[in-house]
């Protein structure tokens, strides 16, 4: 956590002093992520989405009043659930994966002086920095003769830090970003905004380590709110 905060603060410090048409902000939001994969050969199994969080520091350079370039370093949680259904309902494993992400997008703005709509289109790169797993699975060797259930095999509840497998896990991620939202200029300095974002990943969560591998891709929806500050206006206020 400390490393993630330091990463964001480092990027924030890079932008300090570059005023011109620059804007700098802070945003927070919730994510809804799932994995695109196949479970067609797995009995009573489905993959379900998980809600997570995102926090970021959007940095924007406005070329004119309708076109900008925005970079959005952020920490995003992307999770999913391996879920058993039918007679195995109640067995599951939930993965909550944390990514350090850097989307870079073109932003198109339209509307009035204060209230504007915008669209973001771009790409993102990310690093899978951490993982937490929790779940409840069938424990193959834990027969309890005193159990009152039909099946006396006991389940195993767990909640622990996930460990990375060097052979399997692909910790670098890339994908595309499409977003849309509204901003409102509260004061000459501050602007508030709300944005919905769609981020499909085009890199597999796994390295290519086996033949006929079944791919797994993150697919993330995000809604966020934030506030940004025009650095050129800050300069004139300080003067």
């Amino acid at each position, binding site marked *: 956590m400390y490393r993630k905060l330091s990463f964001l603060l480092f990027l924030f410090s890079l932008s300090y002093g570059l005023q011109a048409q620059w804007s700098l902000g802070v945003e927070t939001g919730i994510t809804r992520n799932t994995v695109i994969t196949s479970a067609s050969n797995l009995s*009573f199994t489905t993959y379900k989405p998980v809600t997570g969080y995102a926090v970021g520091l959007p940095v924007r350079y406005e070329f004119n009043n309708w076109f900008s370039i925005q970079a959005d370093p952020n920490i995003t949680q992307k999770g999913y659930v391996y879920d058993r259904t039918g007679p195995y309902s109640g067995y599951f494993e939930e993965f909550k994966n944390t990514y350090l992400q850097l989307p870079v997008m073109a932003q198109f703005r339209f509307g009035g002086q204060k209230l504007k709509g915008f*669209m973001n289109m771009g790409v993102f790169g990310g690093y899978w920095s951490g993982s937490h797993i929790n779940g409840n699975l069938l424990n*193959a*060797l834990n027969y309890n*003769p005193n159990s009152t259930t039909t099946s006396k095999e006991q389940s195993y509840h767990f909640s622990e830090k996930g460990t990375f497998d060097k052979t399997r896990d692909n910790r670098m991620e890339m994908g595309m970003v499409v977003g849309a939202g509204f901003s409102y200029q509260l004061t000459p300095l501050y602007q508030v905004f709300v944005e919905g974002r769609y981020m*499909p990943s*085009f890199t597999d969560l796994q390295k290519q380590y086996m033949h*006929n591998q*079944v791919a797994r891709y993150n697919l993330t929806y995000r809604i966020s709110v934030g506030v940004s500050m025009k650095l050129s206006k800050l300069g004139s206020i300080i003067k």
Partner: protein
Amino acid sequence: MILKTFNKLLLGTFFYLAIVLTACDNVENITPPSQYPITSYSSIFEGFWNGVNNNYVFWSIDTVDWDKMYTRYQPKFAKLSVNDPYADQQAVKYFEEMTSNLIDSHFNLSFYYSGNQFSPAEHRKAKLLKEYPDSLGVLLPPGFFTQSIYSILDSTTAMAGVDTLSDGYPMAAVTGTFLGEVLYFYCNSFSFSDTISTQNTLPVLNKFLQNINIAETNPSYKGIIIDVRNNRGGSVDHLSTILGQMLQKPLKIGETRTKVGNGRLDYSPWMPAKINPPSGSLNYTKPLIVIADHFSVSLAEVFAMTAKAMPNGLFIGETTWGANGPLTTNSETNGGQFTVGELTSQQKPYMDVYTSSAQFRYLNGESYEGKGVPPDVWVPITLKDLNNGVDAPLFTALKRLLN
């Protein structure tokens, strides 16, 4: 001009959205092995290879290069024709070659059409036994326990039973005491849950279970011997039924993990493997010795491991078979055993693949899959001993208990 620019922008946006919205929206569906049609050997091969690829639980420790097996054998199967009467013989031979070095010592192929069966572990050990007859211990004759050992038990307490199980297996069980000081139990299969087929052997087990309390409370008793030599294993409930009787609280004997996805390395966390005592169990404090040999398989090996894990336990004998992975249905754990080839009203499937549903590792973190559990005290049975009427592991256990 502004309108032309805006239109270009709009067009560009639509193209971008089209790319984004269709990117990664589909991963090809995977066909389960049991749904591959048996219309060509290529199809059967694909069903088998992918079935093992996705369901085999030992890929993290098995050194067989399964991708190489695909590259090497896919063209060979493609050349086989279902119209060739000799093709199936060749196909079976190829499947045996592909799997001969897999470490899963439960692994077994059963072919519906030829009736053939193949176990890589049995195949490897048979080869070794041919060259070095004494290297892997001795397959004891059926009457060794029900006659030879039965005859040296105290006549007032000795009891033996023999049944034929529903799968045709000849089950045997023996109990009794040595010199009124050591309680003894033997069985060659943990199948007592099949109460219909164990009419003669179940009473032997019940008598032993009743006598555990006497062994603990009667001061003249020195200990218990559980003999699982030449035992093929069985259902896990016997751990509680038999060993659980001697415990007051759950005993951890190792850990297991199962598959949680299609990737070879998609594993659950390690989960504790425990023996849970039934209600009314006692705290057995006197020595427990488990005798096992190279032909102690699966649950019999767990009995040996439990003796090692208990503070008052000891495992005497030989290194066991090496089949430690528990088994259940494929649907329970999304791993393990599966069938290849589509079952229809006109045809049988092609083969059953019997393989472990979970990995197991002992308390020390080590997996004995394919290697066998090593004894605390190594005492093999040799052909020479047998011919001289000497049961070295049993005599060693008795000497330890009787001083």
